Protein backbone atom coordinates (compact mmCIF):
# COMPACT_ATOMS: atom_id res chain seq x y z
CA UNK A 1 0.00 0.00 0.00
CA UNK A 2 1.16 3.53 -0.74
CA UNK A 3 2.00 5.83 2.10
CA UNK A 4 -0.30 8.49 0.70
CA UNK A 5 -3.73 8.68 -0.86
CA UNK A 6 -4.15 9.03 -4.60
CA UNK A 7 -7.36 10.86 -5.39
CA UNK A 8 -8.67 10.24 -8.91
CA UNK A 9 -12.28 11.32 -8.51
CA UNK A 10 -11.93 14.98 -9.39
CA UNK A 11 -15.24 14.97 -11.26
CA UNK A 12 -17.00 14.43 -7.94
CA UNK A 13 -15.10 17.06 -5.95
CA UNK A 14 -11.66 18.63 -5.98
CA UNK A 15 -9.18 19.72 -3.34
CA UNK A 16 -9.41 23.46 -2.74
CA UNK A 17 -6.38 25.42 -3.93
CA UNK A 18 -4.75 27.43 -1.10
CA UNK A 19 -4.66 30.51 -3.34
CA UNK A 20 -8.42 30.26 -3.68
CA UNK A 21 -8.81 30.12 0.09
CA UNK A 22 -6.51 33.14 0.48
CA UNK A 23 -8.63 35.10 -1.97
CA UNK A 24 -11.78 34.18 -0.08
CA UNK A 25 -10.53 34.85 3.45
CA UNK A 26 -10.98 38.65 3.54
CA UNK A 27 -14.66 38.16 2.76
CA UNK A 28 -15.10 35.96 5.79
CA UNK A 29 -13.16 38.05 8.32
CA UNK A 30 -12.63 41.65 7.15
CA UNK A 31 -15.57 42.37 4.96
CA UNK A 32 -18.40 39.99 5.66
CA UNK A 33 -21.15 42.30 4.44
CA UNK A 34 -23.42 41.37 1.54
CA UNK A 35 -23.90 43.42 -1.58
CA UNK A 36 -27.56 43.88 -0.68
CA UNK A 37 -26.39 46.36 2.02
CA UNK A 38 -24.69 48.71 -0.46
CA UNK A 39 -26.97 51.65 0.34
CA UNK A 40 -26.59 51.27 4.11
CA UNK A 41 -22.86 51.33 4.81
CA UNK A 42 -19.47 51.31 3.13
CA UNK A 43 -18.86 47.60 3.76
CA UNK A 44 -21.90 46.92 1.61
CA UNK A 45 -20.39 48.99 -1.19
CA UNK A 46 -17.14 47.07 -0.94
CA UNK A 47 -19.06 43.82 -1.08
CA UNK A 48 -20.95 45.03 -4.13
CA UNK A 49 -17.67 46.02 -5.81
CA UNK A 50 -16.12 42.65 -5.06
CA UNK A 51 -19.13 40.84 -6.47
CA UNK A 52 -19.22 43.05 -9.58
CA UNK A 53 -15.53 42.42 -10.20
CA UNK A 54 -15.77 38.62 -10.06
CA UNK A 55 -19.00 38.62 -12.04
CA UNK A 56 -17.13 40.55 -14.69
CA UNK A 57 -14.18 38.12 -14.59
CA UNK A 58 -16.41 35.07 -14.87
CA UNK A 59 -18.61 36.44 -17.64
CA UNK A 60 -15.44 37.34 -19.54
CA UNK A 61 -14.47 33.68 -19.46
CA UNK A 62 -17.41 33.03 -21.84
CA UNK A 63 -17.12 36.25 -23.80
CA UNK A 64 -20.35 37.43 -22.17
CA UNK A 65 -21.23 40.68 -20.44
CA UNK A 66 -21.57 40.81 -16.63
CA UNK A 67 -25.36 41.25 -16.63
CA UNK A 68 -25.55 37.88 -18.34
CA UNK A 69 -23.99 35.92 -15.48
CA UNK A 70 -25.71 35.04 -12.21
CA UNK A 71 -24.37 33.14 -9.21
CA UNK A 72 -26.10 30.13 -7.68
CA UNK A 73 -25.33 27.47 -5.10
CA UNK A 74 -23.90 25.09 -7.69
CA UNK A 75 -24.60 23.25 -10.90
CA UNK A 76 -27.79 21.54 -9.71
CA UNK A 77 -29.35 24.89 -8.89
CA UNK A 78 -28.10 26.54 -12.07
CA UNK A 79 -29.70 23.87 -14.25
CA UNK A 80 -32.92 24.11 -12.24
CA UNK A 81 -33.03 27.90 -12.69
CA UNK A 82 -32.45 27.50 -16.42
CA UNK A 83 -34.82 24.64 -17.24
CA UNK A 84 -37.66 25.32 -14.83
CA UNK A 85 -37.27 29.07 -15.39
CA UNK A 86 -37.72 28.71 -19.15
CA UNK A 87 -40.57 26.23 -18.66
CA UNK A 88 -42.36 28.74 -16.41
CA UNK A 89 -41.78 31.56 -18.87
CA UNK A 90 -42.85 29.75 -22.02
CA UNK A 91 -45.01 26.82 -20.88
CA UNK A 92 -48.26 28.72 -21.34
CA UNK A 93 -47.15 31.07 -24.11
CA UNK A 94 -45.16 29.03 -26.55
CA UNK A 95 -45.13 25.32 -25.90
CA UNK A 96 -44.58 22.45 -23.54
CA UNK A 97 -41.96 20.34 -25.30
CA UNK A 98 -38.38 19.96 -24.06
CA UNK A 99 -35.52 17.99 -25.60
CA UNK A 100 -32.60 16.57 -23.63
CA UNK A 101 -30.12 13.77 -24.25
CA UNK A 102 -30.63 10.51 -22.41
CA UNK A 103 -27.18 10.70 -20.82
CA UNK A 104 -27.51 14.06 -19.05
CA UNK A 105 -26.38 14.39 -15.47
CA UNK A 106 -29.09 14.17 -12.80
CA UNK A 107 -29.96 17.88 -12.43
CA UNK A 108 -31.02 18.13 -16.09
CA UNK A 109 -32.44 14.61 -16.28
CA UNK A 110 -34.52 15.00 -13.13
CA UNK A 111 -35.67 18.55 -13.98
CA UNK A 112 -37.02 17.10 -17.22
CA UNK A 113 -38.73 14.24 -15.38
CA UNK A 114 -40.25 16.65 -12.86
CA UNK A 115 -41.63 18.81 -15.66
CA UNK A 116 -42.99 15.72 -17.38
CA UNK A 117 -45.08 15.04 -14.29
CA UNK A 118 -46.49 18.57 -14.62
CA UNK A 119 -47.65 17.97 -18.18
CA UNK A 120 -44.59 18.86 -20.25
CA UNK A 121 -43.44 16.46 -22.97
CA UNK A 122 -39.81 15.44 -23.01
CA UNK A 123 -37.82 13.86 -25.85
CA UNK A 124 -34.78 11.93 -24.63
CA UNK A 125 -32.33 11.95 -27.55
CA UNK A 126 -30.33 8.85 -28.34
CA UNK A 127 -26.57 8.93 -28.40
CA UNK A 128 -24.15 6.81 -30.41
CA UNK A 129 -21.59 4.36 -29.07
CA UNK A 130 -19.22 7.18 -28.10
CA UNK A 131 -21.94 9.25 -26.46
CA UNK A 132 -22.55 11.81 -29.22
CA UNK A 133 -26.09 13.08 -29.54
CA UNK A 134 -27.91 12.06 -32.70
CA UNK A 135 -27.96 15.40 -34.53
CA UNK A 136 -30.53 14.26 -37.10
CA UNK A 137 -32.87 13.08 -34.37
CA UNK A 138 -32.44 16.46 -32.68
CA UNK A 139 -33.36 18.31 -35.87
CA UNK A 140 -36.37 16.05 -36.46
CA UNK A 141 -37.56 16.28 -32.86
CA UNK A 142 -37.93 20.06 -32.76
CA UNK A 143 -41.54 21.12 -33.35
CA UNK A 144 -43.54 24.35 -32.97
CA UNK A 145 -44.25 23.19 -29.44
CA UNK A 146 -40.56 22.91 -28.49
CA UNK A 147 -39.28 25.57 -26.08
CA UNK A 148 -35.90 24.29 -24.92
CA UNK A 149 -33.06 21.95 -25.81
CA UNK A 150 -30.72 21.00 -22.97
CA UNK A 151 -27.63 19.01 -23.94
CA UNK A 152 -24.48 18.93 -21.83
CA UNK A 153 -21.18 20.25 -23.13
CA UNK A 154 -19.28 17.20 -21.86
CA UNK A 155 -20.41 14.05 -20.13
CA UNK A 156 -19.87 13.64 -16.40
CA UNK A 157 -19.05 9.93 -16.63
CA UNK A 158 -17.56 9.07 -20.01
CA UNK A 159 -16.16 12.53 -20.79
CA UNK A 160 -17.37 12.79 -24.39
CA UNK A 161 -17.48 16.43 -25.55
CA UNK A 162 -20.52 17.19 -27.70
CA UNK A 163 -20.46 19.10 -30.95
CA UNK A 164 -22.32 21.99 -29.39
CA UNK A 165 -21.61 24.34 -32.30
CA UNK A 166 -23.83 22.16 -34.50
CA UNK A 167 -26.43 21.74 -31.79
CA UNK A 168 -26.48 25.49 -31.16
CA UNK A 169 -26.82 26.22 -34.87
CA UNK A 170 -29.81 23.89 -35.21
CA UNK A 171 -31.50 25.46 -32.18
CA UNK A 172 -30.89 28.94 -33.53
CA UNK A 173 -32.26 28.04 -36.98
CA UNK A 174 -35.37 26.59 -35.41
CA UNK A 175 -35.80 29.42 -32.91
CA UNK A 176 -35.49 27.23 -29.82
CA UNK A 177 -33.57 28.07 -26.65
CA UNK A 178 -30.44 26.03 -25.92
CA UNK A 179 -29.09 25.27 -22.44
CA UNK A 180 -25.86 23.39 -21.85
CA UNK A 181 -24.49 21.94 -18.63
CA UNK A 182 -20.77 22.76 -18.72
CA UNK A 183 -20.04 21.68 -15.13
CA UNK A 184 -17.30 19.28 -16.19
CA UNK A 185 -15.86 21.18 -19.15
CA UNK A 186 -15.68 24.77 -17.88
CA UNK A 187 -13.18 26.33 -18.31
CA UNK A 188 -10.83 23.61 -19.56
CA UNK A 189 -12.74 23.11 -22.82
CA UNK A 190 -13.23 26.58 -24.35
CA UNK A 191 -16.78 27.82 -24.89
CA UNK A 192 -17.49 31.33 -26.10
CA UNK A 193 -21.02 32.67 -26.46
CA UNK A 194 -19.97 34.98 -29.27
CA UNK A 195 -18.95 31.98 -31.35
CA UNK A 196 -21.43 29.36 -30.19
CA UNK A 197 -25.14 29.93 -30.22
CA UNK A 198 -26.06 28.98 -26.67
CA UNK A 199 -28.53 30.77 -24.42
CA UNK A 200 -27.90 29.27 -21.00
CA UNK A 201 -24.75 27.66 -19.53
CA UNK A 202 -24.44 25.90 -16.18
CA UNK A 203 -21.03 26.09 -14.48
CA UNK A 204 -19.67 25.33 -11.00
CA UNK A 205 -16.52 25.74 -8.89
CA UNK A 206 -16.31 22.34 -7.20
CA UNK A 207 -14.76 20.64 -10.27
CA UNK A 208 -11.90 23.15 -10.62
CA UNK A 209 -10.35 23.37 -7.15
CA UNK A 210 -12.82 26.03 -6.06
CA UNK A 211 -15.19 25.83 -3.10
CA UNK A 212 -18.33 23.70 -3.02
CA UNK A 213 -21.66 25.49 -2.84
CA UNK A 214 -21.02 28.07 -5.57
CA UNK A 215 -21.96 27.88 -9.22
CA UNK A 216 -23.18 30.12 -11.95
CA UNK A 217 -25.49 30.41 -14.89
CA UNK A 218 -24.91 32.33 -18.09
CA UNK A 219 -28.22 33.77 -19.32
CA UNK A 220 -28.08 35.38 -22.77
CA UNK A 221 -29.62 38.83 -22.79
CA UNK A 222 -33.33 38.64 -23.58
CA UNK A 223 -33.77 34.97 -22.67
CA UNK A 224 -37.27 34.49 -21.27
CA UNK A 225 -36.87 33.08 -17.79
CA UNK A 226 -39.11 33.26 -14.73
CA UNK A 227 -37.61 33.39 -11.28
CA UNK A 228 -38.83 30.71 -8.89
CA UNK A 229 -36.42 31.13 -5.95
CA UNK A 230 -38.40 33.94 -4.34
CA UNK A 231 -37.19 36.38 -1.69
CA UNK A 232 -35.01 39.42 -2.34
CA UNK A 233 -34.07 40.93 -5.67
CA UNK A 234 -30.52 39.61 -5.96
CA UNK A 235 -28.86 38.39 -9.17
CA UNK A 236 -30.79 40.72 -11.49
CA UNK A 237 -33.94 39.47 -9.84
CA UNK A 238 -33.43 35.93 -11.10
CA UNK A 239 -32.38 34.24 -7.87
CA UNK A 240 -33.17 35.37 -4.35
CA UNK A 241 -30.82 34.76 -1.45
CA UNK A 242 -27.89 36.57 0.15
CA UNK A 243 -24.90 36.70 -2.14
CA UNK A 244 -22.22 34.12 -1.34
CA UNK A 245 -19.42 36.62 -1.79
CA UNK A 246 -16.52 34.49 -0.49
CA UNK A 247 -17.78 31.68 -2.72
CA UNK A 248 -18.06 33.93 -5.77
CA UNK A 249 -14.57 35.35 -5.16
CA UNK A 250 -13.23 31.79 -4.76
CA UNK A 251 -14.95 30.69 -7.97
CA UNK A 252 -13.38 33.53 -9.98
CA UNK A 253 -9.96 32.81 -8.47
CA UNK A 254 -10.31 29.10 -9.30
CA UNK A 255 -11.07 29.94 -12.93
CA UNK A 256 -8.14 32.38 -13.08
CA UNK A 257 -5.78 29.61 -11.92
CA UNK A 258 -6.70 27.18 -14.70
CA UNK A 259 -4.12 27.40 -17.46
CA UNK A 260 -3.84 25.70 -20.85
CA UNK A 261 -0.48 24.25 -19.71
CA UNK A 262 -2.13 22.59 -16.73
CA UNK A 263 -4.97 21.27 -18.86
CA UNK A 264 -2.40 19.76 -21.23
CA UNK A 265 -0.72 18.11 -18.24
CA UNK A 266 -4.03 16.51 -17.21
CA UNK A 267 -4.53 15.36 -20.77
CA UNK A 268 -1.13 13.66 -20.72
CA UNK A 269 -2.18 11.72 -17.62
CA UNK A 270 -5.52 10.87 -19.23
CA UNK A 271 -3.86 9.56 -22.38
CA UNK A 272 -1.32 7.59 -20.43
CA UNK A 273 -3.90 5.87 -18.23
CA UNK A 274 -6.03 4.95 -21.25
CA UNK A 275 -3.06 3.64 -23.24
CA UNK A 276 -1.58 1.67 -20.34
CA UNK A 277 -4.85 0.17 -19.12
CA UNK A 278 -5.91 -0.96 -22.58
CA UNK A 279 -2.45 -2.32 -23.39
CA UNK A 280 -1.66 -4.05 -20.11
CA UNK A 281 -4.99 -5.29 -18.80
CA UNK A 282 -6.83 -7.75 -21.07
CA UNK A 283 -10.59 -7.53 -21.72
CA UNK A 284 -10.95 -3.79 -21.25
CA UNK A 285 -13.13 -1.33 -23.14
CA UNK A 286 -12.78 2.45 -23.24
CA UNK A 287 -16.07 4.24 -22.62
CA UNK A 288 -16.50 7.53 -24.47
CA UNK A 289 -14.64 8.91 -27.47
CA UNK A 290 -10.88 8.43 -27.54
CA UNK A 291 -9.99 12.07 -28.39
CA UNK A 292 -13.12 14.19 -28.23
CA UNK A 293 -13.29 13.82 -24.50
CA UNK A 294 -12.62 15.88 -21.39
CA UNK A 295 -8.88 16.36 -20.88
CA UNK A 296 -9.18 15.07 -17.31
CA UNK A 297 -11.46 12.04 -17.82
CA UNK A 298 -10.86 8.35 -18.53
CA UNK A 299 -13.56 5.69 -18.17
CA UNK A 300 -12.79 2.02 -18.71
CA UNK A 301 -14.78 -1.19 -18.34
CA UNK A 302 -12.95 -4.20 -16.91
CA UNK A 303 -14.98 -7.14 -18.14
CA UNK A 304 -15.99 -10.13 -15.98
CA UNK A 305 -15.60 -8.20 -12.72
CA UNK A 306 -17.77 -5.81 -10.74
CA UNK A 307 -16.98 -2.14 -10.13
CA UNK A 308 -17.69 -1.82 -6.43
CA UNK A 309 -15.34 -4.70 -5.71
CA UNK A 310 -12.69 -2.90 -7.74
CA UNK A 311 -13.20 0.46 -6.01
CA UNK A 312 -13.11 -1.14 -2.55
CA UNK A 313 -9.86 -2.97 -3.31
CA UNK A 314 -8.39 0.21 -4.81
CA UNK A 315 -9.47 2.16 -1.73
CA UNK A 316 -7.62 -0.32 0.48
CA UNK A 317 -4.55 0.29 -1.70
CA UNK A 318 -4.88 4.04 -1.34
CA UNK A 319 -6.69 5.00 -4.56
CA UNK A 320 -10.05 6.81 -4.79
CA UNK A 321 -12.06 6.30 -8.00
CA UNK A 322 -15.70 5.92 -8.99
CA UNK A 323 -17.78 3.27 -10.83
CA UNK A 324 -20.97 3.05 -12.87
CA UNK A 325 -21.92 -0.28 -11.28
CA UNK A 326 -25.43 -0.66 -9.90
CA UNK A 327 -23.96 -2.01 -6.66
CA UNK A 328 -22.27 1.32 -6.08
CA UNK A 329 -25.31 3.53 -6.49
CA UNK A 330 -27.87 4.11 -3.76
CA UNK A 331 -30.63 3.45 -6.27
CA UNK A 332 -29.04 0.12 -7.31
CA UNK A 333 -29.40 1.21 -10.91
CA UNK A 334 -26.59 0.82 -13.41
CA UNK A 335 -25.15 3.96 -14.95
CA UNK A 336 -27.72 5.44 -17.34
CA UNK A 337 -24.80 6.84 -19.33
CA UNK A 338 -23.16 3.47 -20.08
CA UNK A 339 -26.58 1.99 -20.81
CA UNK A 340 -27.29 5.02 -23.00
CA UNK A 341 -24.24 4.48 -25.21
CA UNK A 342 -25.56 1.03 -25.99
CA UNK A 343 -23.72 -0.78 -23.26
CA UNK A 344 -25.47 -3.46 -21.26
CA UNK A 345 -25.54 -3.96 -17.50
CA UNK A 346 -22.35 -5.98 -17.85
CA UNK A 347 -20.47 -3.03 -19.33
CA UNK A 348 -21.72 -0.68 -16.63
CA UNK A 349 -21.05 -3.29 -13.93
CA UNK A 350 -17.29 -3.21 -14.42
CA UNK A 351 -16.86 0.45 -15.44
CA UNK A 352 -14.39 2.65 -13.56
CA UNK A 353 -14.05 6.43 -13.94
CA UNK A 354 -10.67 8.09 -13.37
CA UNK A 355 -10.68 11.91 -13.24
CA UNK A 356 -7.53 13.96 -12.82
CA UNK A 357 -6.89 17.29 -11.14
CA UNK A 358 -4.17 19.75 -10.25
CA UNK A 359 -2.69 17.62 -7.46
CA UNK A 360 -2.20 14.43 -9.44
CA UNK A 361 1.19 13.50 -10.82
CA UNK A 362 1.97 11.21 -13.73
CA UNK A 363 3.68 8.61 -11.48
CA UNK A 364 0.27 7.93 -9.95
CA UNK A 365 -0.96 6.70 -13.33
CA UNK A 366 1.72 4.02 -13.46
CA UNK A 367 1.03 3.05 -9.85
CA UNK A 368 -2.70 2.59 -10.35
CA UNK A 369 -2.22 0.61 -13.57
CA UNK A 370 0.00 -1.90 -11.76
CA UNK A 371 -2.28 -2.13 -8.71
CA UNK A 372 -5.45 -2.36 -10.75
CA UNK A 373 -3.94 -5.04 -12.96
CA UNK A 374 -3.40 -7.22 -9.90
CA UNK A 375 -6.87 -6.50 -8.46
CA UNK A 376 -8.62 -7.31 -11.72
CA UNK A 377 -6.59 -10.50 -12.10
CA UNK A 378 -7.56 -11.63 -8.58
CA UNK A 379 -11.24 -10.79 -9.03
CA UNK A 380 -11.32 -12.63 -12.34
CA UNK A 381 -9.98 -15.71 -10.60
CA UNK A 382 -13.11 -15.88 -8.48
CA UNK A 383 -15.50 -14.83 -11.25
CA UNK A 384 -17.65 -17.48 -12.95
CA UNK A 385 -17.26 -15.42 -16.13
CA UNK A 386 -14.22 -14.79 -18.21
CA UNK A 387 -12.93 -18.35 -18.18
CA UNK A 388 -11.06 -19.55 -21.23
CA UNK A 389 -14.03 -19.83 -23.57
CA UNK A 390 -15.45 -16.39 -22.69
CA UNK A 391 -12.04 -14.82 -22.97
CA UNK A 392 -11.49 -16.13 -26.45
CA UNK A 393 -14.94 -14.93 -27.32
CA UNK A 394 -14.21 -11.35 -26.29
CA UNK A 395 -10.84 -11.28 -27.98
CA UNK A 396 -12.43 -11.74 -31.33
Amino acid at each position, binding site marked *: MLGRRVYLDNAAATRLDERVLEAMKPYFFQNYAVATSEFAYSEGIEAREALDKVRNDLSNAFGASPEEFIFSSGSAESSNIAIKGVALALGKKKGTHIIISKIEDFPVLHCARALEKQGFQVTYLNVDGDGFVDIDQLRDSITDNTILVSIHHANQEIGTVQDIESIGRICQEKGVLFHTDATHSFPRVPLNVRETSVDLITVAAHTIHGPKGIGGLYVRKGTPIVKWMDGGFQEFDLRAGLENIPGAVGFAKAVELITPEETRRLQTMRDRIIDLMLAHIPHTTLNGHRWKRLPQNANITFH*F*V*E*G*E*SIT*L*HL*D*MHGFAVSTG*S*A*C*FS*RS*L*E*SSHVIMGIGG*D*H*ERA*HGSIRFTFGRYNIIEEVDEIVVTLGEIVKDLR*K*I*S*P*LGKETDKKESER
Partner: protein
Amino acid sequence: MKFPYSEKVLEHFRHPRNVGKIENADGKATEGSPACGDMVSVYIKVDPETMTISDAKFESYGCASNIATGSIITELAKGRTLDEAKKITWKEASEALGGLPKIKAHCSVLAVEGLRSAIQNYEERHGLIKEKEPTTLAVVRRRLKKVMNPLAGLDVMRTNLVRDIQIGDGVIRVEVDLPVSHQFAPAIKEEITEKLETLWDIREVIVEFAE
Protein backbone atom coordinates in the same frame (compact mmCIF):
# COMPACT_ATOMS: atom_id res chain seq x y z
CA MET B 1 -9.49 4.47 7.01
CA LYS B 2 -13.25 4.08 7.00
CA PHE B 3 -15.21 1.43 5.14
CA PRO B 4 -18.91 0.90 4.60
CA TYR B 5 -18.58 -2.75 5.74
CA SER B 6 -17.79 -4.64 8.95
CA GLU B 7 -14.29 -5.99 9.61
CA LYS B 8 -15.60 -9.50 9.01
CA VAL B 9 -17.07 -8.63 5.62
CA LEU B 10 -13.83 -6.95 4.60
CA GLU B 11 -11.82 -9.95 5.76
CA HIS B 12 -13.92 -12.35 3.66
CA PHE B 13 -13.87 -9.90 0.74
CA ARG B 14 -10.08 -9.69 0.77
CA HIS B 15 -9.49 -13.36 1.41
CA PRO B 16 -12.55 -15.24 0.22
CA ARG B 17 -12.70 -18.90 1.29
CA ASN B 18 -13.73 -21.81 -0.93
CA VAL B 19 -13.29 -20.01 -4.23
CA GLY B 20 -13.57 -21.89 -7.50
CA LYS B 21 -15.40 -24.68 -9.25
CA ILE B 22 -15.80 -28.27 -8.08
CA GLU B 23 -15.25 -30.58 -11.05
CA ASN B 24 -18.00 -33.23 -11.12
CA ALA B 25 -19.95 -31.42 -8.42
CA ASP B 26 -22.87 -33.35 -6.98
CA GLY B 27 -25.01 -30.24 -6.99
CA LYS B 28 -24.56 -26.85 -8.61
CA ALA B 29 -26.55 -23.71 -9.25
CA THR B 30 -26.13 -20.17 -10.54
CA GLU B 31 -28.20 -17.27 -9.30
CA GLY B 32 -28.39 -13.88 -10.99
CA SER B 33 -27.02 -13.27 -14.45
CA PRO B 34 -24.22 -11.26 -15.99
CA ALA B 35 -26.62 -9.29 -18.10
CA CYS B 36 -28.32 -7.67 -15.15
CA GLY B 37 -26.00 -7.48 -12.21
CA ASP B 38 -24.38 -9.70 -9.66
CA MET B 39 -24.07 -13.38 -10.27
CA VAL B 40 -22.94 -16.24 -8.07
CA SER B 41 -22.37 -19.95 -8.75
CA VAL B 42 -22.38 -22.51 -5.92
CA TYR B 43 -20.98 -26.07 -6.16
CA ILE B 44 -21.40 -28.81 -3.55
CA LYS B 45 -20.01 -32.29 -2.93
CA VAL B 46 -22.30 -34.54 -0.90
CA ASP B 47 -21.40 -37.57 1.18
CA PRO B 48 -24.24 -39.97 0.27
CA GLU B 49 -23.77 -42.03 3.46
CA THR B 50 -24.37 -39.19 5.88
CA MET B 51 -26.12 -36.81 3.48
CA THR B 52 -23.77 -34.07 4.61
CA ILE B 53 -22.04 -31.46 2.51
CA SER B 54 -18.41 -32.54 2.35
CA ASP B 55 -17.24 -29.63 0.22
CA ALA B 56 -18.66 -26.37 -1.06
CA LYS B 57 -17.21 -23.79 -3.41
CA PHE B 58 -18.39 -20.63 -5.08
CA GLU B 59 -17.60 -18.17 -7.85
CA SER B 60 -18.76 -14.57 -7.79
CA TYR B 61 -19.21 -11.82 -10.34
CA GLY B 62 -20.28 -9.28 -7.82
CA CYS B 63 -19.66 -6.61 -5.27
CA ALA B 64 -18.02 -6.94 -1.87
CA SER B 65 -21.13 -8.15 -0.08
CA ASN B 66 -21.77 -10.74 -2.78
CA ILE B 67 -18.23 -12.09 -2.51
CA ALA B 68 -18.24 -12.08 1.30
CA THR B 69 -21.60 -13.86 1.47
CA GLY B 70 -20.43 -16.51 -1.00
CA SER B 71 -17.40 -17.06 1.21
CA ILE B 72 -19.31 -17.31 4.50
CA ILE B 73 -22.18 -19.40 3.11
CA THR B 74 -19.82 -22.09 1.83
CA GLU B 75 -18.06 -22.06 5.22
CA LEU B 76 -21.39 -22.45 7.02
CA ALA B 77 -22.57 -25.21 4.69
CA LYS B 78 -19.57 -27.51 4.99
CA GLY B 79 -20.19 -30.38 7.41
CA ARG B 80 -23.90 -29.76 7.67
CA THR B 81 -26.56 -32.17 6.48
CA LEU B 82 -28.53 -31.15 3.42
CA ASP B 83 -31.59 -30.46 5.55
CA GLU B 84 -29.61 -28.28 7.94
CA ALA B 85 -27.83 -26.44 5.16
CA LYS B 86 -31.10 -25.72 3.39
CA LYS B 87 -32.26 -23.79 6.42
CA ILE B 88 -29.36 -21.32 6.42
CA THR B 89 -30.93 -17.90 6.01
CA TRP B 90 -29.65 -14.56 4.77
CA LYS B 91 -29.95 -13.35 8.36
CA GLU B 92 -27.68 -16.11 9.61
CA ALA B 93 -25.11 -15.40 6.90
CA SER B 94 -25.33 -11.68 7.59
CA GLU B 95 -24.85 -12.20 11.34
CA ALA B 96 -21.87 -14.45 10.73
CA LEU B 97 -20.38 -11.55 8.78
CA GLY B 98 -20.98 -9.06 11.56
CA GLY B 99 -23.88 -7.49 9.68
CA LEU B 100 -24.39 -6.33 6.10
CA PRO B 101 -25.75 -2.96 5.01
CA LYS B 102 -29.51 -3.26 4.32
CA ILE B 103 -29.12 -1.80 0.84
CA LYS B 104 -26.82 -4.71 0.01
CA ALA B 105 -29.40 -7.41 0.87
CA HIS B 106 -30.20 -7.84 -2.81
CA CYS B 107 -26.58 -8.57 -3.81
CA SER B 108 -25.86 -10.88 -0.89
CA VAL B 109 -29.07 -12.92 -0.87
CA LEU B 110 -28.00 -14.42 -4.21
CA ALA B 111 -25.33 -16.54 -2.52
CA VAL B 112 -27.84 -17.84 0.04
CA GLU B 113 -30.25 -18.75 -2.75
CA GLY B 114 -27.36 -20.25 -4.68
CA LEU B 115 -26.64 -22.72 -1.89
CA ARG B 116 -30.31 -23.68 -1.58
CA SER B 117 -30.61 -24.15 -5.31
CA ALA B 118 -27.43 -26.25 -5.43
CA ILE B 119 -28.90 -28.54 -2.74
CA GLN B 120 -32.17 -28.71 -4.63
CA ASN B 121 -30.25 -29.50 -7.79
CA TYR B 122 -28.55 -32.41 -5.98
CA GLU B 123 -31.88 -33.70 -4.67
CA GLU B 124 -33.52 -33.49 -8.04
CA ARG B 125 -30.66 -35.24 -9.79
CA HIS B 126 -30.68 -38.03 -7.24
CA GLY B 127 -34.44 -38.50 -7.07
CA LEU B 128 -34.51 -37.32 -3.49
CA ILE B 129 -37.40 -34.90 -3.65
CA LYS B 130 -39.48 -36.27 -0.80
CA GLU B 131 -42.81 -34.61 -1.39
CA LYS B 132 -43.19 -35.20 -5.07
CA GLU B 133 -45.67 -32.47 -5.74
CA PRO B 134 -46.72 -32.41 -9.36
CA THR B 135 -45.41 -29.44 -11.30
CA THR B 136 -48.06 -26.76 -11.33
CA LEU B 137 -48.26 -23.28 -12.78
CA ALA B 138 -47.34 -21.89 -9.35
CA VAL B 139 -44.17 -24.00 -9.22
CA VAL B 140 -43.11 -22.86 -12.70
CA ARG B 141 -43.86 -19.24 -11.91
CA ARG B 142 -41.83 -19.44 -8.72
CA ARG B 143 -38.84 -20.76 -10.64
CA LEU B 144 -39.15 -18.25 -13.44
CA LYS B 145 -38.93 -15.49 -10.84
CA LYS B 146 -35.26 -16.40 -10.66
CA VAL B 147 -34.70 -15.82 -14.36
CA MET B 148 -33.61 -12.26 -14.97
CA ASN B 149 -34.83 -9.99 -17.72
CA PRO B 150 -31.58 -8.30 -18.73
CA LEU B 151 -33.45 -5.42 -20.29
CA ALA B 152 -34.91 -4.38 -16.96
CA GLY B 153 -32.64 -5.93 -14.37
CA LEU B 154 -35.69 -7.58 -12.78
CA ASP B 155 -37.04 -11.09 -13.21
CA VAL B 156 -38.96 -12.19 -16.31
CA MET B 157 -42.22 -12.65 -14.38
CA ARG B 158 -42.27 -9.24 -12.78
CA THR B 159 -41.48 -7.56 -16.08
CA ASN B 160 -44.21 -9.46 -17.97
CA LEU B 161 -41.72 -10.97 -20.36
CA VAL B 162 -43.37 -14.37 -20.02
CA ARG B 163 -46.55 -14.25 -22.06
CA ASP B 164 -47.82 -17.77 -21.48
CA ILE B 165 -46.99 -21.00 -19.65
CA GLN B 166 -48.47 -24.39 -20.53
CA ILE B 167 -47.85 -27.65 -18.70
CA GLY B 168 -48.93 -31.09 -19.88
CA ASP B 169 -47.58 -34.60 -20.46
CA GLY B 170 -44.26 -33.83 -18.88
CA VAL B 171 -43.69 -30.85 -21.16
CA ILE B 172 -43.52 -27.20 -20.15
CA ARG B 173 -44.03 -24.66 -22.90
CA VAL B 174 -42.98 -21.08 -22.08
CA GLU B 175 -43.81 -18.25 -24.42
CA VAL B 176 -41.49 -15.24 -24.15
CA ASP B 177 -42.45 -11.80 -25.39
CA LEU B 178 -39.24 -11.10 -27.30
CA PRO B 179 -38.31 -11.62 -30.95
CA VAL B 180 -36.22 -14.74 -31.45
CA SER B 181 -33.53 -12.57 -33.05
CA HIS B 182 -33.17 -10.46 -29.90
CA GLN B 183 -29.65 -10.31 -28.49
CA PHE B 184 -30.79 -11.71 -25.13
CA ALA B 185 -33.04 -14.45 -26.54
CA PRO B 186 -30.50 -17.32 -26.37
CA ALA B 187 -29.41 -16.41 -22.83
CA ILE B 188 -33.00 -16.22 -21.60
CA LYS B 189 -33.88 -19.51 -23.26
CA GLU B 190 -30.92 -21.23 -21.66
CA GLU B 191 -31.73 -19.86 -18.23
CA ILE B 192 -35.39 -20.81 -18.39
CA THR B 193 -34.53 -24.34 -19.52
CA GLU B 194 -31.93 -24.74 -16.80
CA LYS B 195 -34.38 -23.66 -14.10
CA LEU B 196 -37.19 -26.00 -15.20
CA GLU B 197 -35.62 -29.12 -16.69
CA THR B 198 -34.68 -30.66 -13.34
CA LEU B 199 -38.31 -30.84 -12.14
CA TRP B 200 -38.93 -34.53 -11.43
CA ASP B 201 -41.99 -34.94 -13.63
CA ILE B 202 -40.76 -32.87 -16.57
CA ARG B 203 -38.98 -34.42 -19.52
CA GLU B 204 -38.94 -31.47 -21.91
CA VAL B 205 -38.87 -27.68 -21.71
CA ILE B 206 -39.80 -25.70 -24.81
CA VAL B 207 -39.12 -21.97 -24.93
CA GLU B 208 -40.89 -20.09 -27.68
CA PHE B 209 -40.29 -16.51 -28.75
CA ALA B 210 -42.68 -14.03 -30.30
CA GLU B 211 -42.75 -13.69 -34.07
